[in-house]
């Protein structure tokens, strides 16, 4: 490999493609599934950071932790937790669908499988909400 070849940058996506994942027009079911999977993934990353930060109360001992729990015991937080369950349920079930697709399983039924994942996620969320409220 000569020096010039070595310095050549890796091929990049053409500029318009880079932001395409956020575009709202001309999206099929697969496009919406992709966007939802990405957004739920980012929400879960945000939650992970928040969760670990809040858990630092554990290190400050039982009183600090009980105070944190008392704060968490509010309808608003429980509602947010139901939202969290919905986010996890969709990301997990659609994630399983994506793994199946990746291995070529059920590719022709990918739209139907998206709705299966979506409805199952909604059902699981409803059950969790019933258990939590």
């Amino acid at each position, binding site marked *: 490999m000569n020096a010039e070849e070595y310095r050549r940058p890796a091929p990049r996506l053409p500029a318009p493609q880079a932001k395409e994942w956020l575009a709202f027009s001309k999206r099929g079911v697969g496009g919406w599934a992709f966007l939802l999977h*990405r957004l739920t993934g980012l929400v879960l990353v945000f939650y992970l950071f928040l969760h670990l930060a809040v858990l630092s109360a*554990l290190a400050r001992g039982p009183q600090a932790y009980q105070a944190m729990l008392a704060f968490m015991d509010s309808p608003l937080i429980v509602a947010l937790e139901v939202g969290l369950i919905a986010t*996890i349920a969709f990301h997990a079930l659609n994630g399983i669908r994506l793994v199946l697709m990746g291995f070529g399983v059920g590719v022709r039924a990918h739209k139907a499988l998206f709705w299966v994942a979506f409805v199952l996620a909604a059902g699981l969320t409803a059950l969790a909400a019933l258990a939590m409220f």
Partner: protein
Amino acid sequence: MRPKTQWLWQAFSGLLLVFLLALHLTVNHFAAGGLLTYEDIVAYLAQPWVRVLETLFLLTVTYHALAGVRGILLDLNLTTAAARRVTLGLTVLGVLICAYGLWLFTTL
């Protein structure tokens, strides 16, 4: 790593998370009919196999989350140098998160 290998690890860690996260949510949220008290958590984590599973969960979820963020950032048309900085930054962040999580376990 080649993109295909990266996707396989994302898929594998995702499937592992189905079980670990389901366990985590069931035990920490639903089993005791609500949030656990401090004493409940200490007793729960005193079981050796629970430590192993919760530690595996911490490492897996941190990997999956940050590898996912990396994939999204690499979609943004980055130069090779910028992509390297992203990988380095997220790796350091991941190590810090895991170190913090493991330290948190030792305080209980």
